[in-house]
Each structure stands twice: as C-alpha cells, then as structure tokens.
C-alpha cells in the first residue's frame, strides 16, 4: 500500500466568478448558435411574476454572489461559533457547494455558511433545494462530473428519510456525498430527533458518526470526506448536534487533515503487468469507471506508452476513457493476447476496487437494515473464477504500472509500439466512419413522424452542441440511447450514466448538480428528461432558475410510464385477457401535463409542447442560446414512446 496525495486537496479550483461575469464569458459561445427568431416561440417564462414576497433587492443579489459581506466584529452570543470551524473544515476540503432545504437543526451551521469567512457563502456556496431528495440527487450528479463530493444538510429524522432513496442510489452508484444531519435533542418536536439518526440509512451509507464534542465533529467531517472518496466510494453521514454548532469554540484549533490511503497493486504485480503489456503483440486495456479526471489522464498515458487498443465505458458512465481517442476502439486486430482491466473485466488481469458487499458486511446489520445490500443480479460477462482479479484501486495503481513500464522500455519496443499505435488509429478511424454511416441510416427512420422520433430528438441536437463543452446528465435508457455512436464522449463528464439503483425522480436533481459543476466553467448540461421522472421532484427546476444553472432540459414526453405499459401489455397477453386496458395506471393523460407551464411556474424559460419535428431545431437554438447566457431552459417535446 502506498499513500496517494489527495488531488482534490490541492486542486487549483477555478476562480469563482459572479453571475455577471459568467454572462459576459458566455456571450462568445452564444455566437456559435447564431441569432434565433422568437417569432414562432411559445416562450412562456416571465421574470419576477406578481407575488406577495418582493423580488430580491440589488444588495441582496450582491450578497448572493459574495460582494457584500457581514460586519467583521462580533458582539453577540458567540465570538467564535463552533459552526464557523465546521465551515472552515469544509473550505479546507474544497467543498464547492452544500445543498439544503432549511431546517432548525442546522441553523447554526447554515448561518456560518452564509456569513463566515473572507468570502461568505463561497466554498461552500449554499444551494437551496426544494426537497431533501433533490439535494442528494444534486450532490450525486455533481460528484459524477467532478470526481469529488459536494455536501448536503438534512434535518433530523424527517429530512434524512426524505433523502433516503437518493442516498440509496448514490451508494449503489459508488458516488461520494458528504451528508450532514442536524440533531437537536432539546427541540420540542421529539419525533424529529433520535438517539441514532444515522441508523436510518446505515445499510446504504459508507460510514457515519455522531460526534460527542465540537473537536470530534471537526475530525468527523474530515473523516467523512476521506471515507467518501476512498473505494468503494459512497455517501457518508455526520450527525451534528445543534449545541456543538452554537458553542463557543474558544482557542480550539482545526485538526490537521491527512489524505486517505488508497489500496494499490504492489510493485511486483505492477512489474508483471508492465512486462506483459510490453511483450504482448496485441495488448488491450478495458477501462471502466475511474474515480477522477486525473485517473483518466493517467489511463491515457498508459495506453499511449504501451500502444494498446482500448475499450471504454464512456457511453455508459462517467470518468472513463475518451471515446474518440485514436486508440479507443477495436483496433486493427481483435485477437488480443493480453487484456488488462482497469475497474473493468480483463481476461488476464482485472484491477478493481472493493465491492459494496465488502463494506455492507460491517454496515447492514440485520436488525435495522435490509439483510444485506445486494449486487446487481446480472453477473459480469466474463470468467467468474476471479483468479485474475486484484482488489485494489485501479486509478491509484496506474502510476505504478507506468513507472515500471518506463523502466522496462527499450528503443526496439518503442518502435514497435509507435507502429502499433498508427495501425490502431487508422483502423479505428475507418471503423468510425463506417459505423457512423450505418448509424445515420438508422436515424433516418421515422424522421418526419409526429410525435417526434427519439432518433431525431438526439440527432438534431448534436450539430448544435458539438463544438461546445457539454455534459449529458440524464440516464438515456428510456430514450433509446441515441447519443451512442452519434455523439463524441470524450470528457470525464460527457455522459453521467444511470440512476444508481433505477429509482425514478433522479434526473432533474442530478442534472441540477451537473449544472452546479458546469456553472462558471462555460459548460452546458443537457438533460433528456423523462416525463414520469420529472413529476417526482420538479422543484429542482426552481433551483436551476434561482442559481442560474446552464441546464437545457428537453422533455421526452411520451405521456406515460412507458416501460410499465410494455410490461403490463405482455402480462395481459400471456394471461389472454386482452391488452386494451393497459393505459390504466400507466399513462399520464386526461389531462395531459403541460411541462412548459410547469417550468414557467418555477421560473424556467420554456416552450412547447412540440409535436411537429420541423420545429425542433429552432427550439433547440433558442434553448442553447438562453443556456449559454446563464439561464436554464426547458423544451417540452411530445415523443414516440421509445
């Protein structure tokens, strides 16, 4: 085992920019989209609708972006509140955002977040969530983009229960989230507190603690971060008593943070792998989901050093190898004589981090949990003997293999490798062109159909976003995955993959989280939003509007829970009772839901419903232009079911 420096600790975070600056920097990108006429637009949003609560004043908006600061001298109850130190720990850990729905059990901490420090409400910035499930979904989406966690705050027993499904999904998705739960034992609502609040979600969290002093609380936040980012990554919970948030810290110092230790392969194993990669005539690397963008860069280095062809998972999930890298593809020869798996199956060696089960054994106690977390039913398609498996973190192991490879390198080997790379590049390019033509041919089908075909929904969008920095945040299995083969998945966040555990209601929250990651980075987020899913947690639309998230939501509005339409259809057929009543309980009609109006109600500019496919491209242009200007946009498209 070796100690790997925690990259996020020293990460050169991009300078925070205000909303106004972002609007300015996005203007040039907007030029790409060109001018779009609003003549046919059914744009519905109007800013600052009439309401009993006045619109925020200029000075309030300035406070939002950290321009106005609170007074420096404190003359009230606490000179150095404990929660100020908690916020300092979060700042030191580079936690960029903390999402919450406000609650009394963390009022001390919330006050510190928005008032403490030289840049109040910055690192972390408080993100207003309209539901605790949404808060965790946001953290889930953010972490998939960044490879680093953000935090959430939840209220006692009730807030944690609201959030529990989203936590369950983040756990199954091995995604780090720092969850702070407020605990107020003296609160008159005793139902909202408990002796062991974290027990509610213990079966599907990586680690939890309920510290008994302020000092221990600070250590616990640091530990929660370390546990969350160490494989198997996952959500961690710290239950923080209100009294520690409010107590006077006095001279208490913040504990020194020590980065986590990642389990890696040993030098002997690395040397053997390097030797095999070197000696193989046609080596191959299969890359699954790594932890951070830095890991991807190292995987690219290893691929380029060894000249192997690479299978990527970039069209299935985030943090994998770039799809259009010259070596990404089948290569010029599919008879691979050595296959190395990095967080993926490899026929010869498979380096994969520990499974959820290894963690669950210590967490999922039969008395309070599920009787053990389960791994997916479908087994991996490979030799299950496990004789070639090495349980270690692949990302932390790659640099050791690279080091050993460089030691073994000879000029003769280098020459062979450069020839091999050239052959792979040629073959992969030819294959790409051939496959693209086939793909486009398939996309033609139903091109002029109304409702809009899903192939067209994806195809019309690609030329408009191709030259932008984009992230596809929503799971695409229900919209037939038409981005695959068509779009280029080259960035760690190009496609964020599935929900984690198939729980519906994830998309808009996770997309808002991806929007947080994209904000101030001149990136846009595309959310192909299933209609059924949006109705679980539509409040994240408001979060996107309020926090000016660059999020383009395109409704895949098939007016039903279509997977279930098909299942029920088959079941009725098998039972011979007819399939003409399958709409009961599975469709969203009488009345239809107007998603453009729903978005408008939450302050998101919108248009639709669009049934005529000819209107699609113009709507997309308007949407992208708006998103590039720093505002979210929603387009309601009536689509074919699949």
């Amino acid at each position, binding site marked *: 085992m070796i100690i790997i420096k925690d990259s996020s600790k020293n990460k050169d975070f991009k300078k925070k920019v205000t909303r106004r600056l972002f609007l300015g920097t996005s203007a040039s990108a907007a030029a790409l989209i060109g001018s779009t006429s609003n003549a046919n637009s059914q744009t519905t949003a109007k800013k600052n609708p009439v309401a009993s609560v006045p619109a925020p004043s200029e000075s309030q908006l300035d406070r939002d972006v950290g321009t106005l600061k609170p007074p420096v001298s404190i003359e009230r109850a606490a000179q150095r509140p404990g929660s100020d130190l908690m916020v300092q720990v979060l700042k030191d850990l580079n936690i960029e955002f903390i999402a919450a729905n406000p609650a009394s059990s963390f009022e001390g901490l919330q006050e510190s977040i928005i008032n403490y420090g030289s840049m109040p409400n910055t690192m972390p910035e408080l993100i207003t969530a309209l539901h605790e499930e949404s808060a965790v979904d946001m953290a889930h989406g953010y972490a998939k983009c960044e490879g680093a966690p953000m935090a959430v705050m939840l209220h006692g027993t009730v807030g944690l229960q609201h959030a529990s499904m989203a936590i369950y999904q983040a756990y199954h998705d091995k995604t780090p989230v720092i969850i702070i739960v407020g605990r107020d034992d003296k609160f008159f609502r005793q139902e909202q507190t408990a002796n062991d609040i974290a027990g509610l979600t213990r079966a599907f969290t990586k680690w939890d603690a309920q510290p008994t002093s302020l000092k221990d609380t600070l250590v616990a936040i640091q530990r929660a971060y370390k546990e969350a980012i160490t494989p198997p990554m996952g959500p961690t919970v710290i239950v923080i008593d209100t009294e520690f948030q409010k107590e006077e810290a006095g001279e208490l110092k913040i504990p020194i943070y020590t980065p986590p230790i990642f389990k890696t392969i040993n030098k002997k194993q690395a040397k053997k792998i390097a030797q095999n990669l070197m000696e193989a005539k046609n080596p191959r690397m299969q890359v699954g989901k790594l932890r951070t963008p830095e890991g991807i*860069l190292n995987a690219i280095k290893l691929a380029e050093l060894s000249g192997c062809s690479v299978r990527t998972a970039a069209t299935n999930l985030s943090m994998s190898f770039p799809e259009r890298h010259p070596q990404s593809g089948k290569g010029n020869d599919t008879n691979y004589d050595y296959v190395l798996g990095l967080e993926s199956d490899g026929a010869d060696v498979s380096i994969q981090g520990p499974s959820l089960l290894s963690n669950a054994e210590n967490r999922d106690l039969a008395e309070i949990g599920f009787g053990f977390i389960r791994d997916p039913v479908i087994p991996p398609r490979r030799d299950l003997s496990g004789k070639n498996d090495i349980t270690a973190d692949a990302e932390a192991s790659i640099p050791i293999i690279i080091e050993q490879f460089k030691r073994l390198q000879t000029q003769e080997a280098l020459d062979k490798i450069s020839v091999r790379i050239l052959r792979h590049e040629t073959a992969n390019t030819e294959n790409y062109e051939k496959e693209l033509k086939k793909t486009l041919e398939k996309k033609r089908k139903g091109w002029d159909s109304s409702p809009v075909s899903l192939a067209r929904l994806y195809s019309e969008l690609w*030329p408009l976003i191709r030259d932008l920095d984009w992230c596809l945040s929503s799971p695409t299995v229900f919209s037939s995955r038409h981005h695959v083969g068509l779009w280029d998945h080259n960035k760690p966040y190009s496609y964020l993959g599935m929900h984690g555990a198939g729980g519906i209601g994830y998309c808009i929250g996770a997309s808002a989280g991806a929007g947080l990651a994209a904000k101030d980075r001149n990136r846009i987020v595309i959310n192909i939003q299933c209609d059924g899913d949006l109705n679980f947690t539509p409040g994240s639309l408001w979060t996107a509007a309020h926090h000016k998230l660059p999020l383009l939501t395109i409704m895949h509005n098939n007016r039903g829970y279509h997977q279930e339409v098909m299942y029920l259809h088959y079941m009725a057929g*098998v039972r*011979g009772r007819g399939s003409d009543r399958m709409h009961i309980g599975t469709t969203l009609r009488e009345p239809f839901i107007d998603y453009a109006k729903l978005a408008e109600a939450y302050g998101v500019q919108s248009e639709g419903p669009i049934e005529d496919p000819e209107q699609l491209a113009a709507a997309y242009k308007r949407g992208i232009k708006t998103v590039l200007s720093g505002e979210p946009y929603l387009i309601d498209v009536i689509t*074919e079911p*699949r």
Partner: protein
Amino acid sequence: MKKLTPLIFLLALFLYGPIINSATNMENGASLYLDHGCYACHGYNGTGRHPIANNVSGIMSSEALFTIFLRLRADINPMTPSNSMPNYSAAVINDKQAQDLYAYIKTLTDNPPQIENIPALKDILDNANRKTEYE
C-alpha cells in the same frame, strides 16, 4: 423444432386463409392499433423502436401470416418482467379484427428523406472526424 416451424406456419395458413378475406375496416384497425398498445413498441406511425411501416416481408406479407403471428406469440408466464410482444388469442383480437389491424398497418408509411436531404444528418456526416480533444 426449427425444422417444424415452417410446417406449423403452412398448416395454420391453410386453416386461417379462407377466413380472412372479407372487407376490412381501416378505422377499426386504427382504433385497435392504439387500444391494444401496438404503438408501445412500433410507434404511433409504425416508425418506433421496432418499426413495421413499409414492412412487406415476413409476417406482413399476407393477412393470414399476420394473424398466425398474433396467435403464436409467446405466452409463457414470465418470471421476470418482459417487454416481448405478447400473444393475441382470437378471444382478444378476433380474425376480423386482425384483418382490420393488418389493413391499417399496411397503410403506415415511412419515406424519410435521404441523409443528404436532412440538414442535421448531413452536417454530422460532413463533420465526421475522430476528435482528439479530451481532458
């Protein structure tokens, strides 16, 4: 079993063939298409995930084959959820209704433009190159 399948089809064709030759009701066929959820997999216009528009071969080559196909679909009690096409017995869609349904499906057409006449697809093709930019 594979060898027997064509024989079963021929036998069924012989049995069903004479029944399904009366006049068809297109409107009824359209209604059946929606009511029985054909659109779920085949799309509202026969252009969905499993397109059937313009299909002139296989089961759509004759009314008789189409009806046989409906009757011989899978009817095994599924232990896991299935989105395979279910079985349609005569009690659910009778022969006359099957005939109407067939007639309606035959009217579904899909004549999409060629790639060069679809701006978005042409743009994708014209700009196809393996990008080497990545982070």
